[in-house]
């Protein structure tokens, strides 16, 4: 009797393969260790008990540090924006020509490759400990990130608008000023808000490397085993991030809906 097994579908094979790979990687990283995981779970339990109740006596300190964190994020985003906008225009084929645009895009990719935390370390070395290093580190990363986002937004605008404005006989700078920037303005504003939102979260850990903000306290409370104070700092960070996220999402939606509304009408 010939038994015909049902054919194994490629999807199932892929799932088996991925699961096997995951197990192998966990083992390689030392996580496929039962006793270790059990010990970790007990430690987490102890840690969780020490987190509550939060230490309200540090509220003023961490709130002040959170304000500094938001200031770092704001200044970093704005300085990054100031660098990103001209670079994104230079990364546009029509404005600066293909060779220059390609070179600028490569530069932006290079800047983006280095994470904000690493940029912060670079600037701690350059200008010393404190919020200044955080601002400059965040500005560099934001410039690379926003430069890429803006350049993509400029590439996406209606080519007929660019052609119509080029057709009147304008120069490159005039083309950027009168066609590309107004057409992409909503997208640029929405993306800047998104990056600010991201930077508030990113700047919360810049203090780990001495670059200012609430991260300094987060690390300090962990190292001194003050878990209840750590909890207070986490709650303040959480509240600030949620408020800024929500405000940013609403404002971005408004800009994007205006953008899509105008596109739909054209």
């Amino acid at each position, binding site marked *: 009797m010939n038994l015909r097994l049902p054919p194994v579908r490629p999807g199932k094979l892929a799932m088996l393969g991925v699961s096997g790979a995951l197990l192998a990687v966990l083992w390689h990283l030392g996580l496929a260790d039962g006793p270790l995981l059990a010990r970790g779970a007990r430690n987490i339990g102890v840690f969780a008990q020490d987190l509550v109740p939060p230490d309200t006596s540090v509220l003023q300190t961490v709130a002040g540090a959170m304000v500094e964190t938001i200031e770092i994020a704001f200044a970093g985003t704005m300085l990054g924006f100031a660098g990103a906008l001209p670079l994104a225009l230079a990364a546009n084929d029509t404005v600066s020509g293909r060779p220059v645009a390609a070179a600028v895009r490569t530069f932006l990719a290079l800047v983006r490759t280095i994470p904000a935390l690493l940029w912060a370390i670079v600037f701690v070395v350059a200008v010393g400990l404190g919020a200044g290093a955080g601002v400059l580190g965040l500005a560099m990363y934001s410039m690379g990130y926003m430069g890429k986002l803006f350049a993509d937004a400029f590439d996406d605008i209606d080519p007929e608008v660019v052609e119509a404005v080029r057709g009147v*006989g304008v120069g490159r700078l005039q083309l950027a000023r009168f066609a590309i920037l107004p057409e992409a303005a909503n997208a640029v504003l929405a993306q800047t808000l998104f990056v600010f939102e991201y930077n508030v979260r990113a700047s919360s850990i810049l203090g780990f490397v001495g670059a200012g903000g609430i991260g300094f306290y987060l690390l300090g409370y962990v190292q001194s085993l003050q878990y209840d104070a750590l909890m207070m700092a986490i709650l303040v960070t959480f509240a600030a991030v949620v408020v800024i996220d929500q405000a940013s999402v609403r404002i971005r939606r408004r800009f994007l809906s205006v953008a899509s509304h105008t596109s739909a009408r054209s």
Partner: protein
Amino acid sequence: MRTALHSEHNHVPGATRVTPGTAIAVRDLWFAYRDAAPILRGVTFDAYAGEVTMILGESGGGKTTLLRILKGLVTPLRGEVEILGNPLKRGRMGRLDPRVAYIPQQLGLIRSQSVLTNVLTGALARTGTLRSLFGLMPAGHTREAEAILRTLGIGEKAALPVQTLSGGERQRVAIARSLMQHPTVILADEFVSQLDVVTSREIMTLARSVADQGVALVMTTHELDLAREFADRVIVLRDGAVAVDSPAREVDEAALVRAIRG
């Protein structure tokens, strides 16, 4: 219906008065997209000052590409374009020739900007770069733009964003922008194809008036009715070549259909 602006009294500001004769001469234009068969094969024709020249042909037949070449946005494989006897300035990065105004099919207006700003864009070639970058447009240009808008019947809309206008009003803004270039030739791609019948007639009457004042208006269309009503000259493109190049009154609709379909 050549009444709207057809008189000395109703001269459209910006419309160039050109000596009657050839405004744009197209000679042996060939064009192909990479690795594809040529879509323009030796296209040759003249368009005259003060006339409406309509280019007819099936969709995908190269009409839009032809206009883009005439504007200098696309470089042909071969051939020449002359404006009033001088070669068209052409080049991807260089400034394009402002004597040739171009209205793309979707008009290419900046939707978030005001009507006046869009119209003033047409004068950028004669505005200093630094000055324009700071938004300091000469007062004379603003007065001229406002006068054009009034003549085209949308003077009261100058401050409104373009996105709030109707289709016909946007068409008028596009005409106004092109007039700010003081053009010798206006190229319009499927200019009224998205408008209702009444509005498209209104706009064509207006365009006719502009042509009557000495501008060569070259437009593509697939609407034979419009061609019969408003064209001085019709050109039919078939298989990338000129199948008909004739004064409009000398060719009947049946002949045009035969020429378009082959």
